[in-house]
């Protein structure tokens, strides 16, 4: 191991090196009331870290009218001094952002693409067009959008200011922590001095350098590899085609991998895989970056370098995502390599999972045990995402010897036969993870519901997110097909006795029996709920199915109780 190799910071963050960078918004530090009065106040929820995960949670709570304090050590979005991290947001994340009210801005600024091409050497190994993939086409949101992470963060900040309820405290660094029974004490350093506050629920979304792992004695599994990459975010005078190109073995990069994709502002992100012992300072020097661009795009390439960042990655998964009053989410819960966009997107899903549960508990509509299901569900997702990304990392950086031989075998076969394309692993795109052993989901539940469309009673267009918005953080019972008078009576009673809203879903020519109903002319809503024929589906505020069943009976009541954490 050379000295330079040792010096590489193992981080999933991107360190700013050079390039013009982006201009980022700055938010004001406001002296908190605790500093004026010296009073230690107990807050129901304190979130640490205004990254994409912490802001998604804060915005989700604000939308439900739940008060929270958000502490961030910086006064802007993006990592301090750097500003380019995640770039790819999947359909599930976009559906969540639509509920939070920032989707339209993301869609306007971001880039959609559907053609991806994979190369090895001079040849194309295979290509795909996502528009041909029907599983994505029913949602109101596209398969994914490429956009710089800080834009989404900025939109979320502005949305939170608009909604209120969440106190955004900038330049507030947590420097001390003490766990007590049922709450924790935090020490916060600010430009105006330190103060203490108490929190019933501490949400650690502060990223991969969190101090909370040490403070809480969190245990985890970690793995470090020697894979090294260098990003160049560039603007071209003559833009390449709007397609994602990936090279497993790029002749212009020493037969190592290269990723090329477009983001907002006509900026292209090019990821270059480096030698394992590459010196990060050397590979990110402007003349070295320009030489790589010339090798890839030709000697006359005209490009403005917006940002350059070398990075290495590790994989890490906490054993438990909740310790006492502290909940871990985003990069504090797990760290993955960037392949497949499984970092940021799963952080967003972590936040969406916990937001409605915290709201239900703080409103007194669910017992505190509901919060234990956060670990059940999101730990399963974290472990799955770590496994999937480790497999990709192993394909892209095979050990010398047999691992490399098998990769050569797979690549050569993929050029000749379609079956072998399944073995080419340049990243498996993040998905809405399923929950197979959650304490609050039935065996029939645990699946995500796409944001498909239907017709309201007056025949105007609606989508799943509209129904979820209408429930205001409560569970949604959808009953498909005809229902008996007795069942209609039961549903009416249920709607007034439990924290649920009940809606009948009928075909285009069926007469509804329930008070609230929608029309599902093409059966898309029913398909999205993973049920057939006469059935009910219990949909959670995070657009996951808690359970499904056939008749409106005691089974539905039990499913509702279970979904809000009342143990049988």
């Amino acid at each position: 191991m050379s000295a330079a190799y040792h010096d590489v910071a193992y981080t999933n963050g991107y360190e700013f090196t050079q390039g013009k960078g982006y201009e980022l918004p700055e938010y004001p530090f406001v002296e908190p009331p605790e500093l004026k009065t010296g009073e230690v106040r107990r807050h129901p929820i304190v979130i640490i870290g205004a990254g994409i995960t912490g802001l998604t949670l804060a915005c989700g709570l604000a939308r439900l009218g739940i008060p929270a304090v958000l502490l961030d050590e910086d006064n802007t979005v993006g990592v301090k001094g750097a500003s380019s991290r995640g770039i790819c947001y999947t359909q599930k994340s976009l559906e969540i952002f639509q509920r939070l009210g920032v989707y339209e801005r993301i869609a306007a600024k971001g880039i959609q693409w559907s053609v991806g091409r994979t190369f090895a050497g001079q040849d194309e190994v295979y290509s795909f067009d996502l528009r041909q993939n029907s599983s994505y086409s029913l949602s109101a949101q596209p398969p994914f959008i490429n956009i710089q992470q800080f834009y989404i963060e900025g939109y979320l900040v502005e949305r939170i200011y608009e909604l209120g309820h969440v106190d955004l405290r900038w330049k507030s660094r947590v420097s001390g922590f003490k766990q007590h029974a049922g709450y924790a004490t935090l020490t916060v350093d600010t430009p105006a001095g330190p103060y203490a506050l108490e929190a019933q629920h501490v949400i650690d979304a502060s990223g991969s350098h969190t101090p909370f792992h040490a403070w809480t004695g969190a245990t985890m599994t970690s793995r470090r590899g020697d894979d090294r990459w260098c990003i160049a975010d560039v603007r071209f005078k003559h833009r390449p085609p709007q397609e994602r190109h990936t090279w497993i073995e790029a002749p212009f990069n020493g037969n190592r991998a290269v990723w090329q994709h477009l983001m907002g502002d006509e900026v292209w992100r090019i990821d270059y895989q480096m030698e394992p012992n590459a010196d990060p300072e050397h590979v990110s020097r402007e003349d070295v970056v320009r030489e790589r661009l010339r090798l890839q795009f030709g000697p006359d390439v005209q490009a403005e370098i917006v940002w350059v960042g070398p990075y290495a990655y590790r994989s890490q998964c906490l054993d438990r995502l909740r310790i006492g009053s502290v909940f871990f989410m985003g990069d504090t819960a797990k760290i993955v390599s960037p392949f497949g966009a499984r970092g940021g997107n799963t952080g967003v899903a972590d936040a969406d999972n916990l937001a409605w549960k915290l709201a239900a508990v703080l409103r007194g509509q669910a017992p505190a045990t509901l919060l234990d299901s956060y670990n059940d569900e999101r730990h399963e997702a974290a472990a799955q995402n770590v496994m999937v990304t480790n497999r990709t990392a192993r394909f892209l950086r095979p050990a010398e010897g047999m691992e490399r031989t098998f990769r050569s075998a797979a690549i050569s076969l993929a050029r000749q036969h379609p079956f072998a394309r399944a073995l080419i692993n340049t990243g498996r795109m993040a998905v809405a993870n399923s929950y197979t052993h959650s304490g609050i989901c039935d065996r029939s539940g645990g699946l995500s519901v796409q944001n498909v469309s239907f017709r309201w009673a007056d025949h105007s267009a609606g989508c799943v997110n509209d129904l979820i918005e209408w429930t205001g953080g409560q569970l949604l019972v959808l009953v498909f097909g005809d229902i008996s008078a007795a069942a209609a009576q039961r549903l009416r009673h249920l709607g007034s006795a439990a924290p649920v809203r009940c809606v009948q879903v009928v075909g285009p020519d069926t007469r509804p029996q329930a008070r609230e109903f929608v029309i599902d002319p093409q059966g898309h809503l029913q398909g999205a709920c993973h049920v057939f024929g006469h059935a009910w589906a219990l949909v959670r505020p995070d657009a996951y199915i808690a359970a499904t069943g056939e008749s409106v009976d005691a089974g539905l009541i039990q499913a509702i109780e279970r979904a809000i954490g009342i143990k049988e």
Partner: protein
Amino acid sequence: MKTTPHFQDADTFYEQLLDAHTGLSREQSELLNARLILLLANQIGAKDVLAECIQAARELPR
């Protein structure tokens, strides 16, 4: 996983396998074997059978 004979013609297969490697360097042979394993694995498909085959290959007789 089948452990009883399933070959239509075991001797011919074995001969074809050896012939395919004749004249190859060690590296070329390794690549051929790897390609063959991937082709055959796709014929099997079933993940439980594949896992059993990998495990059985690891267990040398004592």
